[in-house]
């Protein structure tokens, strides 16, 4: 029984991190109808930024994640402004290909600069555990990342609902034409959205680095996880991303505990395909008009 509780706990904690990975991806998809296949490489790049800050300046990763987020925000803003905005209205496989090309460039760039070796950000406290009755261990690092991930996601909800910038983003997502008529500059708003998404991915990467290992080839996995969670939670739905993250975290953790071999890798895909077939608009519904056509 305690293995079950341990697996459940691990799944929930991992799910919080998954949510932070996915929430930006979901936002970009919901607001501008772009599936960003380079999202996972933003996550890994964020991990490298925090890793460098920790190695060279001795900055704690929980502080370093701010640096990761800032760097990735800037990169994301520029990529959207300079590249993605040029094909935003093209058929979907064009944007898919563009972001896949970006992904190749980023992943291979990281391979060249940082090599393909596994890395981790070392702290004195992340691997400590808090014992619970029944032999269940709560790893401190994972608990902290969970708390930060949930806090950042909730902060994003507040940003979207309460600030001018957030409202401009949501309005543009609902109806770009109408938002433009109200004086919202869609180009800037899209770039901001993409920047925020990349920044959140960067922060998530910093945290992945403190509780586990990372290397450039992980990028694809994080993109796929983001996709599954975005579909589960509903596009652009931030609470949905939290719920979806926990669902996937639990599914993977339980599968890892109870299935043999590498079956657990297939769990996220199985969940994805089933959900798409049963409820194409996601489990929780979406934050944007259903009526808007997927081109």
């Amino acid at each position, binding site marked *: 029984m305690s293995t079950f509780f341990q697996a459940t706990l691990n799944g929930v904690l991992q799910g919080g991190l998954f949510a932070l990975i996915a929430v930006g991806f979901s936002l970009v998809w919901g607001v501008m109808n772009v599936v960003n296949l380079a999202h996972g490489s933003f996550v890994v790049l964020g991990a490298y930024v925090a890793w460098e800050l920790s190695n060279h300046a001795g900055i704690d990763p929980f502080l370093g994640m701010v640096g990761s987020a800032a760097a990735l925000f800037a990169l994301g803003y520029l990529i959207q402004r300079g590249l993605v905005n040029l094909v935003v209205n093209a058929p979907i496989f064009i944007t898919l290909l*563009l972001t896949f090309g970006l992904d190749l460039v980023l992943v291979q760039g990281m391979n*060249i600069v940082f090599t393909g070796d596994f890395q981790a950000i070392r702290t004195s406290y992340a691997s400590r555990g808090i014992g619970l009755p029944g032999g269940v261990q709560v790893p401190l690092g994972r608990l902290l990342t969970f708390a930060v991930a949930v806090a950042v996601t909730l902060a994003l909800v507040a940003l979207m609902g309460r600030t001018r910038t957030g409202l401009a983003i949501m309005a543009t997502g609902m109806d770009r034409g109408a938002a433009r008529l109200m004086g919202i500059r869609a180009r800037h708003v899209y770039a901001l959205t993409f920047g925020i998404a990349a920044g959140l991915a960067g922060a998530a990467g910093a945290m992945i680095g403190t509780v586990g290992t990372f290397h450039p080839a992980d990028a*694809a996995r994080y993109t796929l996880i983001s996709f599954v969670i975005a579909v589960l939670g509903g596009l652009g739905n931030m609470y949905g991303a939290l719920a979806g993250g926990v669902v996937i975290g639990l599914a993977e953790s339980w599968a890892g505990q109870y299935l043999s071999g*590498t079956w657990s890798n297939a769990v996220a*895909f199985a969940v994805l395909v089933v959900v798409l077939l049963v409820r*194409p608009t996601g489990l929780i519904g979406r934050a944007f008009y259903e009526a808007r056509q997927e081109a």
Partner: protein
Amino acid sequence: MRAAATARRAPGDGTGGGRYTRYGRYGPWAAGAAAVLAAIALQSQLYVGQERVVGSVFMFIVLAQGWNLIGGFAGYASFGQVVFFGLGGYTTAVLMAHARWPYWPALAVSGLVAAAFGALIGTPLLRLRGHYFAIATLGVAEGTREVVNNLTGLTGGGAGITVPTFGARATTAYLGEDGFYLLFLALAALALATAGLVTRSRFGLALRAIHQDEDAAASMGINTTRAKVSAFALSGLLGGLAGSAYTFQLVTVYPENMFDVSITVLMVIMVVIGGSGTLLGPLLGAVALQFISEWLRQSFTEAHTFILGAIIVVVVIVMPEGAVTYLREARRGRGFSPLANIRRYRL
């Protein structure tokens, strides 16, 4: 071949029979036959290494034409197309290694298995549109790879599976570089002929109508479900045949390389570079990209994917409609302006 490209959008396009009036009905077939003969003649001029590269170009012609049927004609961007390639390859490997089948029937069955799989998953998946379809197919491909990975008794799992090709255990003797060159050439010719027939048939017209407006197509009496599923199964057939030949050529295959998502992406980018929904686009795209990527691989061992990624980004922004479309417009005297293309899709 040129004839086919320019006649495609002529008035009266797409309704089967008598469309190539300007060039004669048999012009494209004659051009195709000439191209096949030229490719056979070329073979004797190639080194072994070059032969392999050209053979891989032929293979990608098959794959790109396959993707074009569902992605280009019907407008359903499949991002899991490699699943057919992998299934075809593994069907061949399993039939030859375990059931001791000779290669040729295994090739046929591999194509049919992939086509049947396409029909099976197509029926539910093709109800999804846009990104949802794209990623659901990706999920199916990744999931299938994991299944293959875990059915170790049948597939050997991550340790790979080896086709018996040499010595007394061989069910069919290894074809050698010359043999595979011809096999891939034959498959490429088959793929082109299939695409050509689809282009000029009622079926091709239905797919184009579905692409342009599915609701309107349905209310014109087109059974959209049947047309889409057929296109997906046909694209699966081509993918399965290519995977079967590739497996026999490599002898030992692994789930990671037979279900590699980058093979799907190569198909898509080839079609986009060449011109999606056209007959010659996938052909041009496969030739161009496969040669470029081989050259990059040999010239820049470390940075070649980096450069390939950059090329994809630039191509997609500068010519999202594909070379065939721009050539056609240039011939009509409209010229080619990268800025005009960017203006079309930018925010």
